[in-house]
């Protein structure tokens, strides 16, 4: 019996996605239903931030970090400020460190709400879990607006601390949110975790072996889903994370479902951290006075934090002037994409979309 030979054809996934990942294009070569080659085309959101940052002072570059990973602005700010403080040798007051931890963890919850919601949306549930998670995300964004005036591009951290202290109405709001949050996370898990259709869509799809993950510089839930318990907050504690008690969730199999449940559990651990930080929050200044144009001594620094997407690092080179000589962002979404091709070849388009959703990319961070 002669086999029906069909020529392979190229299908564009993107740049306009039905699912909300940003402007990102994958040229998939299909043979029937299976993908045999996947080539990424990036750069639709390239704004040359690294070049622009060389012309601006260190403080003027903080808003750039908001707009890179626009769904996790606080952690972007935090990573950059830590790098500059490492470069310039600035010490941050304790209250500022606690506030940084609180807002970074709030941002982690918000980002994971979005990531998990859109993941289930990619699997086909018409935004129902997404809307549930957006309820809590809205409350977190209200907290941000209360403190620094902006919901998304917060521009909250400064070199040497944070920009504003929290207002009085912040405490009851965050306390009530943290009191309710564990029930809500249990609600999300009840909606999704035991759903066989979700299991059918996400189990054993996009499996990433641990040694391949390490070798491909994967970070964040991608790495933890493959069973490697690595978290920058535990390995290289910054701010006051060494005083917080929390656990690292890891998966067993390295597939999309494991990354999904890792993110769910990370939300719970973030609630733990926030509660402890609120208890231990000391009084004091939230900032240190700095010269208008900060001129760190010549040298270089690489500082990293655990952003919701993975390890966010900043490599700064200073030459003694007010502007950085080299400003480079180690963006987790970009480097996590290294594994995409291996993950996706051999799957069908539906599975490729689910895998891409589980990596949790943010194109602002990829393209910068």
């Amino acid at each position, binding site marked *: 019996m002669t086999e029906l030979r069909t020529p392979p054809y190229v299908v564009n996934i993107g740049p306009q996605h039905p699912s909300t990942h940003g402007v990102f294009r994958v040229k998939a070569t299909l043979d029937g239903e299976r993908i045999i080659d996947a080539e990424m085309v990036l750069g639709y959101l390239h704004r040359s931030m690294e070049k622009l940052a060389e012309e601006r002072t260190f403080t003027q570059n903080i808003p750039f970090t908001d707009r890179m990973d626009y769904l996790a602005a606080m952690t972007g700010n935090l990573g950059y400020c830590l790098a500059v403080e490492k470069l310039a040798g600035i010490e941050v007051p304790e209250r500022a460190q606690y506030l940084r931890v609180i807002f970074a963890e709030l941002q982690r919850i918000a980002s994971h709400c979005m990531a998990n919601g859109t993941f289930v949306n990619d699997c086909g549930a018409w935004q129902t879990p997404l809307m549930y998670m957006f309820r809590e995300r809205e409350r977190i964004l209200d907290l941000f607006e209360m403190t620094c005036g902006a919901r998304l591009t917060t521009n909250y951290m400064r070199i040497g601390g944070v920009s504003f202290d929290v207002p009085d109405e912040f405490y009851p709001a965050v306390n009530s949110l943290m009191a309710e949050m564990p029930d809500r996370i249990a609600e999300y898990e009840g909606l999704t975790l035991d759903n066989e259709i979700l299991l059918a869509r996400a189990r054993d799809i996009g499996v990433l072996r641990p040694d391949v993950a390490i070798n491909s510089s994967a970070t964040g839930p991608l790495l933890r889903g493959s069973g490697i318990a690595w978290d920058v907050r535990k390995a290289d504690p910054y701010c006051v994370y060494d005083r917080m008690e929390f656990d690292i969730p890891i998966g067993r199999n390295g597939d999309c479902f494991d990354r999904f449940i890792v993110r*769910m559990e990370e939300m719970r651990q973030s609630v733990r951290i926030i509660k402890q930080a609120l208890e231990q929050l000391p009084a004091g200044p939230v900032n240190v006075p700095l010269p208008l144009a900060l001129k760190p001594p010549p040298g270089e620094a690489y500082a990293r934090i655990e952003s919701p997407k993975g390890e966010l690092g900043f490599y700064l080179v200073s030459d003694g002037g007010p502007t950085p000589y080299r400003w480079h962002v180690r963006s987790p979404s970009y480097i996590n994409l290294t594994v995409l091709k291996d993950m996706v070849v051999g799957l069908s388009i*539906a599975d490729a979309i689910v895998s891409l959703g589980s990596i949790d990319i943010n194109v602002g961070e990829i393209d910068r």
Partner: protein
Amino acid sequence: MAPLLNWYDFDPFHDLYHWLDKHVESWVVYLVAAVIGSAGILTFVGLGALVNVWLERRLIGRIQVRRGPNRVGPFGLVQPVADAIKLIQKEVLQPDAADSRLFNLPPIIVFIPAMLTFAVFAWAPDLVLANLDAGVLYLLAISSITALAIFIAGWSSNNKYALLGAMRVIAMMISYEVPMVMCFLAPVLLAGTMSVAGLVQWQQHHFLLAAFVPMSVLIYGLSATAELNRTPADIAEAESEIVAGYHTEYSGMKFGLFYAVELINSLAVSGIMASLFFGGWWLFGVEKVIPAWIIFILKIYFFYFGLIWLRGTLPRFRIDQLMGLAWKMLLPLALINVAVIATEVLIWQEADLGGWVLAPYAVVNIALTAALVVVFFRIVTARFYRLPTRVILVRDIQVPALPAPASSALRPPTPLPQ
């Protein structure tokens, strides 16, 4: 031609027809009755489509913890009108290379079976537009036309991806016709009649058929969602969107017709479910108080609510999972169902037992259905539960000392098949 009178038992037009019959030819009365009945059904279908648009959006909103449309009119009630106006005033684009005559046909073709389904429903004890003796067969036959219309839509768009989407949808719809046909055999065997009105009457004298053939209810529920292209089986509107679905090239009211037909089909499917399995216009004597057709319409909307509920809650299947479900799970279940019911009917008739035997039959069938569903379910989903669905919590960092992968070099592009 008096026997024709039995074909259009429209009450309270009964007197009108009998009066007309004395003065005019029989076939004229038949035509008049057909026109009046069709007008009634068209009214219901038209209003039903409008109500469904509003109901669907509002209910899905409530399921998703948000309000549905609430701007246009009180509680958003004027929203369907706004949607219709929007679709009507859109520019209707047609690709140059599309086959023009074939391109314009599908919106019309797909509308016809949706309308025709309502003809055999029994709205009240004597209110049937076409009391066909082979009503169930008629329903199955016309529901296959939808698949044809979808394929014409995909083919005539002259769009590679629309064709791909259309072919997938056809494969799915044809696959789900088979269990659907099988599952209709069971109530027909039990009741001894294929006419829809006859089945409702049988249920009036005995009990709801759902109690006797619960397996058919379940199979029909799932097959119907697949036939309707609704979640969890809506690959036509979702994955194919990335490739492009069968109705991409349709804009304006042509697309509006596809959308409306999906809603009307949902009503039709709910109607079939209500008539065949849940008693139609009969509800334990309540139809003496409330008009029977109101009860029937309420039942239709009850099942439509179930369809919306499914849509709001469940993620969607992949195409190969859907086909596996149809052929490997539903078809064997349907065959077992038919075999069991046939045996029971045989015993009933051969041993000449009375009507009392239906009660133990119901008990046996429900128990058997539950057992079979559980068993099949366990078999099919066993592989998802070999790993627990919870994470491991680790107190401190713990990285295993793994050697770097052997082939660290990246995989070169796969050579394309010649």
